[in-house]
């Protein structure tokens, strides 16, 4: 295994810097919301975490498609990496959302379409790992996982749609019901999104390298036992 590429080292540094800067903006630059107070500051990282979660699952589905089309093991490694990151960040999104919802909605949880969809996504990708761990043959495991990553990801929009329709049968026009963000809040928000996206790229790269390393160790072990 080659030593860490310089680009990755730069990315490491950049993501750390961006995260600290984003944190600084959240607490130092963005104004405190008048009615919600300090707890509103969860919003910046909450949405960013959920964005990274969605991005992870999207990347996994695309990597699954590429694996099925090309059959190169690299895409399988990318797929697991993306699913793992997606799972972790969706969980961060759920927990941070609950922390916000407790004082604002006066409950940790409601059966809102977004909340349920994220939870169903978590369940789909937990099932994804159960499927992986149940199958011994590496080639078959990679193929099945790719199929499930695609099928699971495609069901997500329909799940969201069906739960949204469940609340009210009337067509819902996609509007942001939130009050317009103050300019400084908006800038902080966009910056957090950017910082998290860079973080995602960094983590993905690290995880892919780890996956390749695991595969290499596996190959060496096979050679030893032969």
């Amino acid at each position: 295994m080659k030593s860490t590429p310089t680009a990755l080292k730069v990315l490491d540094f950049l993501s750390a810097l961006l995260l600290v800067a984003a944190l600084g903006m959240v607490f130092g630059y963005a104004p405190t919301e008048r009615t919600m107070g300090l707890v509103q500051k969860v919003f910046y990282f909450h949405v960013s975490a959920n964005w990274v979660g969605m991005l992870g699952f999207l990347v996994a589905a695309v990597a699954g498609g590429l694996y099925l089309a090309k059959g190169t093991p690299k895409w399988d490694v990318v797929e697991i990496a993306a699913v793992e990151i997606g799972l972790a960040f969706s969980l961060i999104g759920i927990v941070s959302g609950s922390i916000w919802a407790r004082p604002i909605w006066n409950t940790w949880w409601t059966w809102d379409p977004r909340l349920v969809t994220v939870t169903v996504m978590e369940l789909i990708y937990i099932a994804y790992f159960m499927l992986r761990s149940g199958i011994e043959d590496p080639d078959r495991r990679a193929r099945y996982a790719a199929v499930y990553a695609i099928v699971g990801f495609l069901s997500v929009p329909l799940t969201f749609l069906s739960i949204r329709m469940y609340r009210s049968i009337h067509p819902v026009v996609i509007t942001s019901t939130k009050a317009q963000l103050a300019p400084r809040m908006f800038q902080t928000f966009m910056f957090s999104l950017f910082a998290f996206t860079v973080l995602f790229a960094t983590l993905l790269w690290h995880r892919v390298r780890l996956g390749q390393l695991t595969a290499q160790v596996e190959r060496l072990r096979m050679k030893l036992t032969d």
Partner: protein
Amino acid sequence: MSSPSPITGLWQATRAIVWKDLTAERRSRELLSAMLVFALLVILSFNFALDLDPKTRGSVASGVLWVTFIFAGTLGLNRSMATEKDRGCLDGLLLAPIDRSAIYFGKAIANLAFMLIVEAIVFPLYSVLYNVNLFLPGLLLTVILGSVGYVAVGTLLSSMAVQARTRDMLLPILLFPVTLPVLIAAVKASAGYLSGLPLEEITPWLNLLVVYDVIFIAIAFMVFDFIVEE
């Protein structure tokens, strides 16, 4: 003998596999009897768990029916693939000089047939037990659309789950989160028909079912080759 066109070839192979499954089932009656008894047990459990008195019954009937169908359906899906695997029939099917999609469509249609038969027996029973009329054309349409979507994804996933060590446990865990839209739409559409809602409040749910069915039959058709590839 001239070789048949791809479409007729696919259709003939699919028909042969459906026929094989139905014949095997007609002789053994393993699958249907298990699914049926299980379905009745689920309804019985619901009867006491939810205390289905006439008042609550109206609001939960469609939910009870659909949960019964998908539980019984899972049982059938698991079994139908497990028999192929355990007796080595799957290898035989894969060796046959036919399009792999024919295996998927054959198994899916046979599974759908079993599910519809169970539903066709549960419906009159439920009608008699609880004195409601379930034989509404719209409700029957909903049952067909919902079962098609459930079986389309279920056949695909059960052919993966059957290869895993934990196969019997794995199928519902893989299948339920992905088929949640089917359950929601089917329950809402059935409840709409049962409580006599106007059609324009039910159509969005039927549309959702149709969209789900079309998308996932297409996806299954495209990816099934990768599942049975050896």
